[in-house]
């Protein structure tokens, strides 16, 4: 049986009751992996919601949402936080940020908010894109002018499908009312133009593989990009 992932959950980190209702709904729809948004100031502290989700049998990955306003801010954020998080996502509101974010290997996911249509995911970015493009269901179920957001989503999905970019579907839910089954998120993406196989991969294979790869990378001892430590002298052990 296929297992699913929702890499974007942003519940209040201390609200245990809310976490429990989300966990019960997620386990019922066969979700295996969730990405929990953890702000940098909470990385070292215990997270009650993460414990609730783990107790329900879910695999919890820590996720950071970077919202840089400039290229320099993005690079500084990546340098500081890459080694502390399993998933790093970048919200692309400025074109200088999106050009760098789609190419940088340290970025896992890019996201183009539909509320700010000035900087959309277009063909020029798709050509150089090496990271996964995220679609958040919360953007469709909240706010006004559904038609505009549907149009933008459809165009984004078409561009990604044409360029063969990996797409990821998630909910960005902060409570159980915003939560949907990953399988239903795939159905929404399929309805808006993504082939069914790719839509199912977007909520199962791609996110699960992404977190597994990042965990291996975080566990490895590396000197720098591409240089691994094979053995140390006896005095270091």
């Amino acid at each position, binding site marked *: 049986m296929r297992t699913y992932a929702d890499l974007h959950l942003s519940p209040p980190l201390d609200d245990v009751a809310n976490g429990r*209702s989300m966990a019960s*709904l997620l386990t*019922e*729809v066969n979700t295996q992996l969730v990405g929990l948004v953890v702000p940098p100031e909470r990385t070292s502290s215990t997270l009650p919601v993460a414990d609730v989700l783990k107790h329900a049998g879910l695999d919890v990955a820590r996720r950071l949402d970077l919202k840089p306003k400039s290229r320099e801010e993005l690079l500084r954020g990546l340098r500081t936080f890459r080694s502390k998080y399993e998933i790093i996502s970048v919200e692309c509101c400025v074109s200088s940020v999106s050009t760098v974010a789609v190419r940088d290997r340290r970025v896992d996911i890019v996201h183009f908010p539909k509320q700010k249509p000035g900087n959309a995911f277009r063909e020029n970015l798709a050509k150089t894109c090496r990271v996964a493009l995220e679609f958040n*269901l919360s953007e*469709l*179920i*909240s706010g006004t002018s*559904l038609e505009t957001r549907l149009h933008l989503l459809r165009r984004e999905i078409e561009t990604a499908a044409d360029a063969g970019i990996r797409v990821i579907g998630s909910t960005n839910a902060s409570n*159980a*009312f*915003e*939560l*949907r*089954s990953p*399988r*239903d*998120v795939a*159905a*929404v993406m*399929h*309805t808006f133009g993504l082939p*069914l196989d790719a839509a199912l991969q977007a909520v199962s294979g791609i996110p699960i593989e992404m977190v597994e790869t990042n965990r291996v990378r975080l566990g490895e001892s590396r000197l720098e990009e591409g240089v691994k430590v094979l053995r140390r002298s006896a005095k270091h052990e």
Partner: protein
Amino acid sequence: MNSSRQRYLLVNFFADSDLSAKAVEQNAHRSFENLLGRLGAAEAHVRMVGFDERRSRAVFRCRAAFTEKLRAALALMTQIDGNPVSAVVIRSSGTIKGLGARVQRYRQSK
């Protein structure tokens, strides 16, 4: 493929107040029409065939070719009678029996 083949979906409605079968059906139809229009709704032949008021679970039936679209329409539902709600498809099957759920039969009174 046989175009008249049907598909059944077991849907869990998460709400903080009690839901009536009639309200759930009306809102599900409205969401489907908003997404696909009246023509799409007519072709999909969506019906709510059962509803468990105690557990807020419904069984919907549609033509097999429209299963993904029905899922999408249900996922885009955000409220019923002004109350926030989330609709989550728990299981999908070609038969009601295959859903493995006991849900009371719902008959439309028109």
